[in-house]
């Protein structure tokens, strides 16, 4: 009985994260079309209808999926059969797996059990997410290499170069956060952001590490391979690593970009925007700086926290979409220069600065 309950809980945790990420990824196709349309004074896709119901074009992702699934699955004659088929799956798998160690709520206590609201409890969660994000580029490289197409190969090579330069900056910028909160576990980092600075300011990562936030977001957007860092794709010069793919396999690469957007949004939320923390909400209810308190039941607190996390992730996705539809793309050499001569030295400077402040301040805030 106890084993069944444990299994059920573990399954529920994984299912929640999986469905959240998958649905967000699917929905982002719609968000992208509608948000860009509204930003550009257009209306956007609104024609797909079921029984005359249009719902602001919400059926378009379904229509797209049906179309992609029924298209010819083409494979070039000289392509590597196995790797060509495997590449999109590798891509999607690592993008999906990356979200596992991002906590979406505090510990839930039900019937004497303590359930950490996180798909996998890892004490090196931050490293795990990086590892998954970096491994994701293997799918792209495999796609580029196995397609037997020079443009695809160029795209794959660019993806690798971009990922390395972005990954270094991500890792270095995150060091500051790890130093401030003193843990590699995502849950501990989010918990650390629940304290108040000077008694009123939530110690969110964006407050304690503003420079790291900007650097991480920039490098994170680069890691999603979307505009303004779409060198692997490079529509205007090389079609990119998925030039030979058709049907749902091409759709999976597109999906990967969306999933990675969700992962980066989740990461940014957890590391810099307080994760599931609601300002001034503690385990037993609200406690405002003035001393005013409002007790809330445990379940409601947890619900509020999960809601806050989802809301913050959606907000971050909105910001990332805003950037994607505002900025023109970087040239390949410009992106490399930004990564190696801009983001990376600044991240190192941020580490030094954080260390100095922590040394002078005498420990963590």
């Amino acid at each position, binding site marked *: 009985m106890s084993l069944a309950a444990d299994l059920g809980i573990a399954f529920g945790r994984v299912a929640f994260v999986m469905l959240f990420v998958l649905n967000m990824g699917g929905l982002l196709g719609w968000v992208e079309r509608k948000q860009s349309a*509204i*930003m550009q*004074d257009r*209306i956007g896709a609104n024609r797909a209808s079921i029984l005359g119901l249009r719902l602001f074009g919400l059926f378009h992702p379904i229509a797209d999926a049906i179309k992609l699934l029924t298209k010819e699955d083409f494979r070039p004659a000289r392509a590597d059969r196995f790797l060509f088929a495997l590449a999109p799956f590798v891509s999607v798998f690592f993008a999906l797996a990356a979200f596992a160690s991002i906590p979406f709520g505090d510990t839930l206590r039900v019937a004497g059990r303590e359930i950490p609201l996180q798909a996998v409890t890892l004490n090196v969660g931050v490293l795990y997410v990086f590892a998954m994000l970096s491994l994701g580029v293997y799918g792209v490289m495999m796609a580029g290499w196995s397609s037997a197409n020079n443009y695809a190969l160029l795209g794959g090579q660019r993806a690798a170069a971009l990922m390395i330069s972005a990954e270094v900056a991500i890792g270095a910028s995150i060091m500051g956060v790890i130093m401030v909160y003193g843990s590699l576990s995502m849950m501990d980092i989010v918990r650390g952001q629940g304290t108040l600075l000077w008694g009123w300011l939530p110690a969110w990562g964006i407050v304690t590490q503003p420079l790291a936030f*900007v650097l991480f977001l920039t490098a994170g957007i680069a890691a999603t391979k979307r505009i303004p860092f779409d060198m692997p794709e490079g529509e205007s010069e090389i079609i990119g690593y998925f030039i030979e793919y058709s049907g749902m396999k091409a759709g999976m690469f597109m999906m990967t970009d969306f999933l990675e957007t969700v992962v980066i949004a989740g990461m940014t939320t957890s590391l810099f925007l307080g994760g599931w923390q609601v300002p001034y909400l503690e385990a037993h209810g609200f406690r405002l700086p003035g001393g005013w308190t409002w007790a809330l039941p445990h379940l409601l607190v947890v619900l509020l926290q999960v809601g806050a996390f989802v809301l913050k992730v959606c907000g971050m996705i909105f910001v990332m979409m805003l950037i994607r*539809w505002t900025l023109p793309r970087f040239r390949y050499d410009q992106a490399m220069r930004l990564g190696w001569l801009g983001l990376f030295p600044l991240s190192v400077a941020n580490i030094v600065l954080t260390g100095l402040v922590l040394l002078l301040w005498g420990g963590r805030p």
Partner: protein
Amino acid sequence: MRALQRFYLVEVLSGIALTAAHFFRNMGRHTLRALGKKDARGAVTIQYPEERRPYSPRLRSLHRLVRREDGSPRCVACMMCETVCPARCIYIIAAEHPNPEIEKVPARFDIDIGKCVFCGYCVEACPEDAIRMDTGILEFSSYSRGGMIYTKDALLALEPAGPDGRPRSPVPIPADRTP
């Protein structure tokens, strides 16, 4: 200023502020419209098949042949339009007119719309004001080249556009196109 631009982040933020302002302004207008305020428009889009922009009276649209009071074509088959047509899309076969005061009448008057470049020279060249391009009809398409040939009877049946520039006669549908 140049140093500030080189720093990039400031320019990025101002660009994002601009697009975000567009987003929220348009979103607000869309919301107002959904709440019943019909003059709020969040987009410049014209939802084409249902919604059409008014056409200018000068618009050169599908040709029509003008009729006399008795319904016969005003055209006297002088071949002016066929001669002036740069696309050579007009084919006329002349015939005798029963009335001796009228010289000729077209036995056939075909326009291959698939070749027409809509220059309007035929309208200008016509001495009888027998051909006009004022029907306001723009949606003529076909699955075959044959379907793009409009015969004398089809061209005679067309009416001029209404005062708003909208077509008054139905769009002639070629046999190979289902509506």
